[in-house]
């Protein structure tokens, strides 16, 4: 080959390669930084993502100065990306949804900016207009770091026909106690019907643990998992397994409920659109099972999606105001979010009669019910969650010794916290 041609081809390859690399990096950065655009990250990739997109579209139709660009990311990916972008200072979203349990940790790591100054122009964004459990999470050191979108709770579905047959009066007061579940279970057992399905043990454990007077932390830093109350909580469920009123290990409780083989089914309110798909199922929704029928002692595990502003040097004051304007708009227009199965945190939703017809609204309509919504707010909640997910089912189904599992979990969480120097 002629030397000149060789050199030319080589140069072309290099130029094309460099250009393509350059184009990659350019498109990703210029994509993000629309001047009059609010880049909004959220973890709504499921069916609820469509409802969020609908809300964003509706907002953009109002012709705001700053339009919102909705970017839904898988939860794990989003939480992995957040530290990276904050660290690099580039491509940081203008608005972000994070789970309530993350806020303390994010504030502690200096990743969020307080909204107080920008909120001054929107006096309606205040405690009185939101569900207390959701609002309280965002107030730290007399500063407001977040505004709640929703409060989503772990409740209990029930099969109306089976409940009428096996637990005729359990639902009269809207509180089903564990004793009532056991009684119904023992009656239904001979018919192959289960009453106390073991589902997601983390929220179930936390609800009962809290009812027993337990707390996941003694002072906000030290974890308290290895306690008598924790042992009793797991023993309660283990007892149900032993008396044969639960699903068997490995059996799908959701399937059992949807096919009419379970009286009760503890699950999140967000699962209702899935339950609705089951044909010939006459179902209702009530509080998570309680130890006592005293309404004031009720606990329903809850979490909340919260709007936050990640630290972003490029987000100027005007854009921040645009962001708050959107949050304020959501406050008045949360019905599509309720249609996704969630409970919007904005109390303005209660003004809409359509919302009152939705089964999950019972948690918000009643002041006592609202008080039962408990968000397990703890800086190291993530470590506790991981441990509960790990030992929950194994201890309940008798594959792991309860005391040993709790002792090991306590140690694991303590060791992980010790690394936070």
């Amino acid at each position, binding site marked *: 080959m002629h030397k000149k041609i*060789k050199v030319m081809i*080589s140069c072309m*390859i*290099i130029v094309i*390669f460099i250009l393509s690399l350059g184009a990659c990096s350019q498109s990703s950065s210029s994509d993000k930084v629309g001047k009059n655009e609010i880049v909004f990250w959220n973890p709504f990739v499921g069916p609820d993502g469509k409802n969020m997109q609908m809300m964003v579209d509706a907002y953009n139709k109002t012709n705001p100065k700053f339009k919102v660009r909705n970017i839904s990311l898988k939860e*794990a990916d989003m*939480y*992995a990306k957040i*530290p*990276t972008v*904050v*660290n690099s200072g580039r491509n940081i979203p203008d608005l972000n949804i994070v789970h309530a349990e993350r806020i303390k*940790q994010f504030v502690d*790591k*200096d*990743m969020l900016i307080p909204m107080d100054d920008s909120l001054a122009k929107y006096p309606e964004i205040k405690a009185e207009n939101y569900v207390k459990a959701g609002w309280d999470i965002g107030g730290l050191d007399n500063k407001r770091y977040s505004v709640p979108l929703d409060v989503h709770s772990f409740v209990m579905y029930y099969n109306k026909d089976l409940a009428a047959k096996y637990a005729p009066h359990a639902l009269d007061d809207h509180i089903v106690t564990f004793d009532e579940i056991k009684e119904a279970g023992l009656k239904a057992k001979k018919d192959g019907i289960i009453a106390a399905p073991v589902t997601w043990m983390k929220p179930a454990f936390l609800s009962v643990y809290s009812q027993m007077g337990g707390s996941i932390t003694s002072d906000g830093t030290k974890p308290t998992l290895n306690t008598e109350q924790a042992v009793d909580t797991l023993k309660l469920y283990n007892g149900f397994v032993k008396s044969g009123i639960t699903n*068997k*290990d*490995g*059996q*799908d409780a959701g*399937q*059992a409920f949807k096919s009419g083989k379970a009286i009760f089914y503890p699950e999140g309110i967000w699962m209702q659109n899935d339950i609705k798909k089951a044909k010939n199922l006459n179902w209702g929704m009530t509080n998570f099972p309680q130890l006592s029928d005293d309404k004031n002692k009720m606990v329903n595990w809850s979490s909340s999606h919260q709007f936050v502003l990640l630290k972003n040097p490029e987000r100027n004051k005007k854009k921040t105001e645009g962001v708050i304007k959107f949050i304020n708009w959501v406050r008045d227009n949360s019905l599509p979010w309720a249609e996704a199965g969630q409970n919007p945190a904005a109390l303005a939703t209660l003004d809409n009669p359509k919302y009152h017809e939705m089964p999950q609204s019972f948690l918000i309509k009643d002041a006592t019910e609202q008080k039962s919504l408990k968000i397990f707010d703890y800086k*190291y*909640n*993530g*470590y506790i*969650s*991981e441990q509960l997910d*790990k030992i929950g*089912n*194994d201890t309940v*189904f008798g*594959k*792991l010794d309860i005391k040993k599992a709790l002792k090991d979990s306590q*140690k*694991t969480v303590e*060791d*992980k916290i010790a*690394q*936070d*120097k």
Partner: protein
Amino acid sequence: MDLKLTEKKRIDVLSPAMGKPHRKGINFSPMIFIGPHLLLFALFFLIPIFFGVYISFTNWDLVNTPEFVGLDNYKEILLNKESTFYTQLHTGLGNTFKFVAFTVPACIIIPLLLAAALHVKPKGMKIFQAIFYLPVLFSISAVMIIWSMMFNVSFGPINHYFTSSPNWLGTQPYAWIALVVVTVWWGIGGNMIIYQAALNGVSKEYYEAASLDGAGRLQKFFHITLPSIKNQLLFTIVITTIAQFNIYGQALMLTKGGPSSSTTVLLMYIQQNAFGSGQSIAGIASAMAVILGLCIMAVSVIQFFLLRERK
């Protein structure tokens, strides 16, 4: 020795495609061809490796600046018997080694037998070849979702047809059996194709000569077939071992590490420590990853040593 002559020969060997050898300066042509790949290799492989090793000497939460702590992370996971991370490394590495020990022989022997069976060109050979190869093309998530349905206690076909009711994914030893079966099913095709190609390359004359000498089928297989495809075997053993050491998806999606952490492999602990629900412990996670990397390297070197060409 005539140095000039040696140098000339070296250049001739280095640039056979160039027609005439370059006697002076550096030859850039190979660099230009290899350049793009080298750049990507450095960008996505070398830099992350060095960064990962550096992180293993620090305490880092992914947000603030990494704080250099020397060998503290290694001391914690290798020497501090009281530490959770020591237990994690031992449990995780132990389960990873178990997985490698269970799957690698099966992932070599079964494809080899299938390749040998297909080599005699039975009826419908192409169809069987396609069936055996097909799973390789599926993504791990699809494979795991399909198999978790297959193993489902209530409506899974496996329990239905075997009229048994073990909780395949939640009790031992069934959980291990399930993991191995799925992994082998998923990976048969890759190695099988390599063996098929290798078997086609073995000269028929050897077999004919052996037949004349009265050798049986097994004798031919062990004395002709295996030695002839030794290099391909070595390659597949090393590659399969490395691949199985990196087990993550199967255990995560199928057994979720259970029951009681008996199938929690090291990569799951690494992932959870670095990118879990809680605050990141990236330093410890990186140190664990480095240890896993060293184990893979050591095992590969031993395999090379044992199977190398002896002259």
